[in-house]
């Protein structure tokens, strides 16, 4: 898929908590607020997956959330990048042997989805900004020639 010139914009992210401990979620908010202030890079948190370019997933995907996670992935328009935030999103972390966990998230994603892993338990806001940058670099490569 090639992107048109209209895509030359800042990234909008949608945040999905799939059963995380709040640690990463609180750091995502910290990244938005004045100390880190990602909005100065044009990164904006939006209220609907239909507006998003990047999906931020935190948490190891609990049974109750699995279906909803899949639906959000479905609703996000292409091209999209999935950012898996935190160790438990990437590998389920300390929640590795539970009956209530269906994750990690990357095993549930449709094939071909571009994934950026942001590690840390919880992630540091700096690392989060770096993750969005990685997503942006990927999307930039899809840019078409119709400049």
């Amino acid at each position: 898929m090639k992107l048109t010139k209209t895509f030359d914009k800042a990234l909008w992210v949608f945040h999905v908590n799939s059963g995380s401990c709040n640690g990463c979620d609180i750091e995502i908010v910290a990244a938005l607020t004045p100390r880190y202030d990602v909005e100065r890079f044009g990164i904006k948190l939006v209220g609907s997956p239909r507006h998003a370019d990047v999906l931020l997933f935190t948490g190891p995907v609990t049974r109750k959330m699995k279906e909803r996670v899949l639906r959000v992935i479905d609703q996000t328009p292409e091209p999209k990048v999935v950012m898996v935030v935190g160790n438990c999103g990437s590998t389920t972390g300390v929640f590795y042997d539970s009956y209530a966990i269906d994750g990690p998230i990357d095993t549930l994603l449709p094939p071909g989805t571009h994934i950026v892993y942001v590690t840390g338990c919880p992630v540091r806001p700096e690392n989060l900004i770096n993750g969005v940058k990685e997503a942006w670099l990927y999307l930039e490569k899809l840019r078409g020639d119709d400049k």
Partner: protein
Amino acid sequence: MSDKNTYQVPIGPIHPAFKEPFMVNFVLDGETIVDAEAHPGMNHRGVEFMGMHRNPLKVIPLAERICGICSIVHQHMFTTATEHAAGIEPTERARYIRTILAELERIHSHVLWAGVAAHEIGFDTHLHFTWKVRERVMDLLEYITGNRVNYAMWTIGGVNRDITKKMYPKIEDTLLYYESLYGKLEDIFLGDTSIRLRTRNVGILTEEDALRLCGVGPTVRASGVRKDVRIDQPYAAYGDLDLDYVIPSSFGYENTGDVFSKTLVRLKEIPQSIDLIRQCVDGMPDGDIDSEPRKAVLINKLKKADGEGIGRIEAPRGEAFHYVRLEGGMEEVANWKVRASTYNNLTTYRPMFMGEQIADIPIIAACIDPCIGCMDRAEVVDVRSGERKHFSHEELHRLSVEKTKMLLGGLP
């Protein structure tokens, strides 16, 4: 509410000020709430089950990750309960270090809550202001423990890292910063007319309901209930410290139990925490930070231990509770029950929501400082038409902001 508003957003926390997926069902008569019921469980990870497959030292990191905001609370309770069960005494110095960290966490949690509450009624400037000032205590926690959120400080019998004399000036600096800032916070949250309009007489919890529903923490202290584990059944170093129940009537306010009182109690706990940290720093005893630094010996001791213990802590959100049973010869924790503060406060939602308006849902939902996040989606049943409607959180937030604007517009 016209039909075009009845859309559904399928997944939880739409604004990140709300962290976790959670749902409350409402029954409405026009604009008025006549019934409310919470549906938790989206975030059920089976933590207790996992803990019962690991040895106590491996449970500590797991307990820490039950909640990322109160990570100190759960590791504190688990270690206290395990020490009780195994008959291990933490060193005195460790008790003081634990107390300092617990109080620092209380400051960060209450400041964070103030920001979330301000956001709920449409004051995003205050959200950004409180989160900016919160970074100072996060810096201090990082300076002491090495991490911003999950601190890995607790171990059975003590703590992992010391608070040395070299660190005292930086602690004092941060405390002075919050002291100088406190007046401003009070001005914003207690003095501002528009905030008072939105919080006074909203979400009232009577003293009787608070007691009968076994509510805990600032949620019930705002109604005048004297319940505070730090004072009632002192743990860590609280028995040595001088502190009193924070209830509105001690400060010349009425114990109304509304959102305003809850805000007041949380704000007044910030200077109390500052005072407690000073007392701890002044009275810090010398000695080891860990009663058994050799982990292999400790694991062996825990394996042989046979007994049961409880850990009760006054978390920023109220009393929390762990029960641990150890069986002789068994490596794993034989039984572990985790009970966070919100678990008890969930039942207090019902009396608080009754008779309020849809636009007040966000602030009332936030006023118990729910640790299992927010309403991801509120389902609303109109009793007049019997119609079911779904409100997204954004929509509720919009209604809440509109109410603030309307109230402000009505001012002379």
